[in-house]
């Protein structure tokens, strides 16, 4: 592989890793410690050196292994959602393209902005959890239920506020039903 295409392939690797949500979560939240960003750069360069240094037959299983072990050893992250296989496949395809001097995929990646929303959205739920549940077990199901509860709570309050001024009209309904307004503060218990 020519050095020029190797450098462009290196850029391509960095772009692919920048769009890998699991790795970006790890770097942004510091799952690998203070030097998580440096570890990300080392990760990219070690992937590039694997591609350029190993002899002819490149197996995708080896690449998946390298990605997986790197995430566990450097970022303490076990990735079980299948994204490792997808990233490895993308890298292998990009490598074959670069061997044939076809840099279209890299250009396409560079022009389309990476989605940073996924990582920041995940952070929001975690903050809500931390605020409410300090004694919660880090049980995954418990976290899920708490987050759903948190999201649902603000809504019914708004509905209650909007409904209060309405049912004071005493005009009959379609079928002749009258709305009886509630007697608030009419029967004063405490003088």
């Amino acid at each position, binding site marked *: 592989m020519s050095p020029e295409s190797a450098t462009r392939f290196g850029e391509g690797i960095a772009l692919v890793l920048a769009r890998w949500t699991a790795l970006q979560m790890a770097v942004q939240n510091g799952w690998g410690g203070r030097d998580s960003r440096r570890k990300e750069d080392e990760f990219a360069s*070690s992937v590039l050196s694997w591609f350029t240094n190993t002899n002819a037959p490149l197996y995708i299983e080896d690449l998946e292994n390298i990605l997986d072990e790197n995430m566990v*050893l450097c970022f303490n992250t076990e990735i079980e959602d*299948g994204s490792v296989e997808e990233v490895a496949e993308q890298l292998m395809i990009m490598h074959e393209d670069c061997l044939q001097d076809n840099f279209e995929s890299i250009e396409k990646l560079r022009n389309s902005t990476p989605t940073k929303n996924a990582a920041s959205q995940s952070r929001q739920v975690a903050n809500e959890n931390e605020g409410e549940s300090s004694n919660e077990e880090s049980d995954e199901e418990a976290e899920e239920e708490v987050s759903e509860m948190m999201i649902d709570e603000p809504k019914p309050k708004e509905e209650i506020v909007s409904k209060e001024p309405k049912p004071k009209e005493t005009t009959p309904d379609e079928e002749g039903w009258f709305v009886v307004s509630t007697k608030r503060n009419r029967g004063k218990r405490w003088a």
Partner: protein
Amino acid sequence: MTFKRRNGGRNKHGRGHVKFIRCSNCGKCCPKDKAIKRFLVRNIVEQAAVRDVQEACVYDGYTLPKLYAKMQYCVSCAIHSHVVRVRSRTDRRNREPPQRFRRRDDTARPGQGPRPAGAPTPART
């Protein structure tokens, strides 16, 4: 008696005491620096059920969300659930060897090599 690990099995330097955390598996108290911490990235729906959920889904092309959780294991649970493994005396010393194919001529091994620091816990082989 011999020392099994240079750092004593935990990552406490310059402190007298660290607070404990509870193991996420068994609830055992374990010092925070000694616990084996792993971040889990999983799909909320397991692989086998993905197709069923997608068929029952109202929205077209709905990407299923993922679950990000931090698991803190005590040493017993980590070994029992195969998060970490027992290593031989020489293997215990490698802390972070992610890459076996590093270029020899590169200055790619600044903190590696004959550093006698022992790993706090055995890593996955």
